[in-house]
């Protein structure tokens, strides 16, 4: 047994008490869905997990009505302190059920248990805990002395961090006094449905949170178009974000969008090399690269390019790809066949456009959706893989000579979500951070998240921020303050 071989250490799924089928959670009750139901599968095995009801436009209407009634009769009349107490309860229940939620998320999404256990679920609890404390302090949110909730929030979340994205949406909305209708992604509804159960355990009043799995073009569209919705919050693709912005034009609806990215991770010659290599790995191979703020473009100063690439590929050789439930696994499954096909096609385009392809030499399981970590060198700024979001474990490496060139190349994208800077020179770090047109900049680190830290993009990566006071204001209006 070499030092890289480990005995299997799978997390048990016995902690899960899943039902064979799940309905929609509307007004505190489980109800049938009007659209064709869907079997959610585990992307690492393609085995079915449960049958999930899908909401029709009529169901969406029912959910919005429930949310409106809960807003009018209960939630908007409750003191901030009491709203906060419900959120604190939810935070605690998430901590108590953390292992169950981590297993469910890994099963449904395909990401490693190490990540759901150590990143996703702890952050979910932290998000609710943070916003719980805001609920009775809204007059300090910077919107004047009398901030008002918006009403009913329609929230549509992606499949890459299912429960974490739910927390980013639901926690600030409830703290600010809104009620919500949330549509989880088609391929990852499971933890949102378990969250409905947590709401029931917390005794949250009926209709304050409604969870309606469904198809984007049916339930998502109906939610965006619904005249009873005051606010839309969406995380997902830029294409869908555009369509939502177009749809709500001319209405009073407020909108926040967290969309795609093509983050530049810039490594200067004076960077701490080993730490930078860890940061590059964390930037693009964390969560199989299914991260909107991934550092998918590596910009390396020319004179350290060969050294960095050599150390990077050597480090990637130590990553273990396989069963996401195994506690030793670093790289899990791609979330869906559809996404795997897209990654495969884009990687092939990278090769055909002349970039040099390196692929991790590792075995992949027979069933499920898998993509080997891939690094492209010799990438030109005009190449498809340097411009389009791949949303997979594929890194494009480009070079630069001067800081000015690095900044120009980093900003040469319609996106503007994240960027990384690796240098030991603090003055240069601060100046480069000033010049980068991106909403989140990680210097000598990457892919860090915290409920107190605003997150969101410039340009076509969307608008609005999630996290901290900024994220709270996305769910408030200022009354009449100037």
């Amino acid at each position, binding site marked *: 047994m070499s030092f890289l071989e480990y005995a299997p250490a799978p997390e048990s799924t016995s902690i899960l008490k899943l039902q064979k089928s799940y309905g929609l959670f509307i007004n505190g009750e489980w109800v049938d869905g009007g659209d064709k139901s869907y079997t959610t599968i585990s992307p690492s095995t393609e085995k079915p997990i449960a049958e999930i009801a899908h909401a029709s436009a009529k169901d969406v209407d029912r959910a919005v009505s429930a949310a409106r009634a809960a807003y009018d009769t209960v939630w908007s009349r409750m003191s901030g302190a009491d709203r906060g107490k419900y959120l604190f309860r939810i935070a605690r229940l998430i901590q108590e059920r953390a292992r169950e939620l981590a297993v469910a998320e890994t099963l449904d999404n395909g990401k490693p248990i190490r990540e759901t256990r150590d990143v996703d679920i702890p952050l979910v609890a*932290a998000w609710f805990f943070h916003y719980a404390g805001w609920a009775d302090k809204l007059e300090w949110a*910077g*919107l004047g002395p009398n901030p008002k909730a918006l009403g009913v929030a329609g929230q549509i979340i992606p499949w890459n961090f299912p429960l974490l994205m739910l927390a980013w949406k639901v926690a600030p909305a409830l703290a600010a006094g809104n009620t919500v209708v949330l549509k989880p992604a088609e391929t990852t509804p499971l933890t949102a449905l378990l969250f409905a159960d947590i709401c029931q355990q917390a005794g949250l009043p009926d209709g304050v949170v409604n969870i309606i799995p469904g198809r984007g073009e049916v339930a998502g569209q109906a939610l965006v178009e619904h005249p009873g919705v005051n606010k839309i919050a969406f995380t997902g693709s*830029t294409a869908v*974000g*555009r*369509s939502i*912005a*177009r749809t709500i*034009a*001319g209405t009073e609806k407020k909108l926040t*969008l967290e*969309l795609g990215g093509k983050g530049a991770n810039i490594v200067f010659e004076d960077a701490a090399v080993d730490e930078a290599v860890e940061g590059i790995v964390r930037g693009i191979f964390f969560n199989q690269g299914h991260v909107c703020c991934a550092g998918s473009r590596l910009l390396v100063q020319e004179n350290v390019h060969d050294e960095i690439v050599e150390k990077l590929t050597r480090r990637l050789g130590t990553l273990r790809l396989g069963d996401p439930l195994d506690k030793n696994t670093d790289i899990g499954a791609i979330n869906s066949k559809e996404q795997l096909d897209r990654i495969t096609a884009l990687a092939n385009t990278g090769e055909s456009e002349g970039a040099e392809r390196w692929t991790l030499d590792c075995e992949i399981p027979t069933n499920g959706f898998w993509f080997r970590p891939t690094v492209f060198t010799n990438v030109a700024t005009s190449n498809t893989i340097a411009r389009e979001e791949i949303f997979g474990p594929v890194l494009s490496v480009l070079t630069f000579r001067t800081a000015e060139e690095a900044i120009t190349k980093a900003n040469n994208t*319609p996106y*503007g979500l994240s960027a990384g800077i690796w240098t030991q020179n603090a003055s240069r*770090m601060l100046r480069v*951070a000033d010049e980068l047109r*991106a*909403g*989140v*900049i*990680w*210097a*000598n*680190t990457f892919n*860090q998240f*915290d409920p*107190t*830290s*605003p*997150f*969101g993009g*410039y*340009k*076509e990566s*969307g*608008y609005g*921020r999630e996290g*901290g006071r*900024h994220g709270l204001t996305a769910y408030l209006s*200022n009354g009449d303050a*100037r």
Partner: protein
Amino acid sequence: MSRLPVAKTYKLFIGGAFPRSESGRVYDVTSPSGEFIANASKASRKDARDAVVAARAAVAKWSSATAYNRGQVMYRIAEMLEGRSAQFVDEIQKSTGASAKDATTEVNAAIDLLVWYAGWTDKYAQVVGGANPVAGPFFNLSVPEPSGVAFVIAPQGNATLIGLVAAIAPALVTGNTVVALSDESSPCAAMSFAEVIATSDVPGGVVNILTGSPAEIAPWMASHQDVNTVDLGGADAELALACERDAAETLKRVIRPGQFSSTTGSVDRIGAFVETKTVWHTKSLA
């Protein structure tokens, strides 16, 4: 013997210069009673695109100017406007039929509004940004930055001067550059305001002012790839709807009609032209 007055030719204001419309078009500006006042330039799509080019080129300088400097320049605009207030009172009266008292009130309010916004340049970041207490060994700071180039439509048919000032000033506070379209029916005060801007140490291209038809110009700006924010405050409902739809293609930040008062200042309106940047940095003794 009465002196024959010298009439002013009203042109556009692009990149710090006063060109005529490249289209050669003008339109009649008349008083409410129909009396001819002046010919105004009727800006074309090309003029608007030129203005965006000028505005984009000016972003680097204006956004990297110190907040203190931006504040002084904006205060300088107020000073210059104050010194020429009689001219603005006269122009507002002629083109809108307002009383001398009402026109004076409007000009004074516009001056005071500029002073108010000028004072925000070096305070806004402190009020809305700051350190975030993240759970880890990181220095984490959020700061507001300008979105870039803004296209703003001044209110149409009312608040001819103050509406324009209220649309331009909040964008300037954080370092955006502006392409503004004036009140179509009374553009004279707007173009005289351009002269105030031109003599206030505002770098060329930071503010560009066009006169002409919102229905003709605004859709080009809403779909323009190099415009970051559109303020549709002066658009009617039909035009605003079309522009908001066009703006969705490039995910522009959009200010809807009625979102802000057209005559008073608003901290939130500064925020409508701002991106929040959050920077994380590791901390260690190593």
